[in-house]
């Protein structure tokens, strides 16, 4: 039993924290949230130079062959900085899909480019039901044929070069984002995350568009949904830690009634609860990510972490609003954006209801 990250993980985290502090200050995150495109090419290129988009990609395909746990620790830092953009969708979720389901030629063509940040891929999953359960998928088409239908909540479709479309039964199509007949409509989100409805109108697909050989899709999709749920949990944990740090700093320095408000027990006890919420969320996240990296069965652990952290981290955000008082309600203050990101993350890749049902079955409820 050991909670300490390895020395290389500590290095990765330290570099990420320094880099993001300098390159992604709260003002930039806020500006990108308000901007319609909201994508900073320069920042993306510099992250690629650090090798981050290739962290999960094996060395022979241009990546650094890191573990999912390494990736989760990195994404935690991104959550702390409120980093916007397509990183999780491309470098975690789509990369997992290509690694899990892609044929050798597809992997060779796409993974080095994804690892280098030259291409960006995203998953088109959710349909009208709003469910992240792969069993709820209905979109299908015979191949070769023309695909008609739509997907909702597709992240960063405006900057993606490649779309991976999840079909009924968990089969996956890999389509260039600019194939004729594919269009996207922007959704206006609370968090400033760029999310789209992607419509397919008579899009020509043939057998070469399947991601990988027949039958690999469902398992790869489950693994990618696991990675996505973990990455979203990591974003929440990183953001909640940052909110906690800010709240404690505010409590130490904000003077009212002749003393710092952190000297009042009402504030002290709130802060004590925030520590509990952040520490437990991180503990569950790391346990689940470690098990996933070790190849252990991890469904209930991921579900536990995602469901628990969603509630706990949002509680941290709401109570911190109380600690900050009026200043936290201002657009120029960093709290609200971190809070909105947590809200988006808690509902992405399965909400508490979906994940607690997984837990319910795991504890033996029939």
């Amino acid at each position, binding site marked *: *039993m050991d909670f300490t990250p390895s020395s290389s993980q500590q290095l990765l985290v330290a570099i990420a924290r320094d880099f993001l502090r300098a390159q992604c200050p709260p003002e930039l995150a806020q500006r990108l949230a308000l901007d319609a495109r909201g994508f900073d090419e320069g920042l993306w290129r510099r992250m690629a130079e650090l090798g981050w988009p290739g962290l999960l990609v094996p060395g022979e395909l241009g990546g650094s062959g890191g573990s999912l746990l390494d990736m989760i620790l990195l994404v935690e830092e991104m959550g702390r900085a409120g980093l916007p953009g397509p990183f999780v969708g491309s470098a975690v979720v789509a990369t997992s899909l290509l690694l899990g389901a892609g044929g050798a030629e597809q992997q060779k063509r796409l993974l080095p480019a994804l690892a280098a940040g030259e291409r960006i891929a995203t998953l088109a999953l959710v349909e009208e039901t709003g469910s992240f359960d792969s069993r709820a998928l209905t979109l299908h088409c015979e191949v070769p044929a023309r695909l008609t239908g739509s997907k909702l909540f597709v992240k960063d479709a405006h900057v993606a070069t490649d779309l991976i479309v999840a079909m009924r039964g968990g089969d996956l199509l890999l389509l260039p984002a600019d194939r004729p007949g594919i269009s996207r409509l922007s959704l206006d989100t609370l968090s400033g995350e760029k999310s789209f409805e992607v419509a397919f109108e008579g899009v020509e697909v043939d057998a070469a568009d399947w991601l990988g050989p027949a039958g690999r899709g469902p398992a790869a999709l489950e693994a990618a949904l696991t990675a996505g749920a973990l990455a979203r949990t990591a974003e929440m944990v990183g953001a909640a830690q940052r909110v906690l740090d800010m709240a*404690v700093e505010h409590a130490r320095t904000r003077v009212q009634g002749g003393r710092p408000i952190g000297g009042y*027990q009402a504030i002290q*006890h709130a802060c*004590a*609860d925030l520590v509990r919420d952040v520490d437990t969320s991180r503990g569950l996240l790391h346990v689940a990510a470690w098990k996933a990296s070790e190849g252990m069965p991890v469904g209930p652990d991921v579900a536990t972490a995602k*469901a628990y952290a969603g509630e706990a981290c949002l509680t941290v955000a709401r109570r911190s609003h109380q600690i900050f008082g009026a200043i936290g309600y201002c657009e120029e203050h960093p709290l609200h954006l971190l809070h909105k990101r947590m809200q988006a993350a808690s509902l992405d890749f399965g909400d508490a209801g979906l994940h607690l049902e997984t837990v319910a079955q795991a504890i033996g409820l029939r």
Partner: protein
Amino acid sequence: MEFAFTAEEQAFREDVRRFVAEHPGERFSLDGMDAGYGSGAHSRAFMGALGARGWIAMTWPRAFGGAERPMFFKLILLEELAAAGAPFGPLAGAWQTADAIIEYGTERLRREVLPAVAHGKATFWQGYSEPGAGSDLLSLTTEAKRDGESWIIRGHKIWSSHAGIATHGLVFTRTSRETRRSRGFSMFVVPNGAPGIDVRPIRSLTGEIYHYEVFLDDVRVPADLMLGPEGEGFQALLNGLDSDRFWGRYYKAPALERVLRQLVEYANTTMAGGAPLGRDPVVRRRLAGMAADIAALRTLFYRAACLLRDGATITYETAVAKVMADELGQKLAQLGMDLLGPWGPLREGSRHARLGGRISHDYLTSLGHTIAGGTAEVLRTTIAVRGLGLPADRRL
């Protein structure tokens, strides 16, 4: 990072599982009630069985009769005993006292008391609180005065768990007046039955006896039964609090899991409105949410365990685990009450009682847990001040 037990630890877990299967709790006579912490009832007979296996002393140095097993063996032992509902009530307290004796006990304590602990014969009550000294321990008035080779203790202790059935008290006294309010305190190991000790039971809201008050009327204690440095007892007490909180609550997560398993089984097998109770979406969600809460609690204890094992500084990590454990215990007991409905308030032994009437007992005892060993409020202040560096209230 590594969130698994070693092969050696797993093998020990299998040993303990075999032991609890071969020594079911109901075969052992009980001396004192189960206060619901998860450590079961007080049973000298069961402690004797643990002692006979060498497990009470297993982590001690060989020079003191131990086997120098790693600290994590204690975690595994507690987990398995709690999961089985075994009556190991005094174990954590005995371990804590033994560790203090090994660290700074006199020759006499090491010679007379340690072997008795190892065999499960010696158990301890804590004489800390007084009628006028609860959360503010420093306002205690029990005094010990030096008289030749002895100390004479006079005072009144209260809320001492199992004091009427334990063999020794750990009596915290003022031994001198100092300018610094926190100095001048010393701890004594006082044998029960020493002349001048009067131990009286306090009936609790469960209707049973768990706590006692102890009157010490000029109790003469040999000087070499002082535990730790004279006059520096408060610092020693504070230093030990982090690990006391840890060992006093470590078994709570597996114990809560045990209750949760019973509730899941109950929900699966109890029909409500034509379908099993466990099919009700609200019931499913509350039980699953509780499982997630318990898993979260475990991570706090495992992290604190690693810090204790590695000798790292603890500022808030055991306090936060204790508060969460005790508040979760209340939440689980309420969930149990809700699932049982009108059967919930039935007592153990009542006609129609379900799940052995244990849920109503757990509900009542859980009310004491957020107070005993540091109230949730005092501990939240500790977390904020010591853990987060928020300003201390100078009046405290």
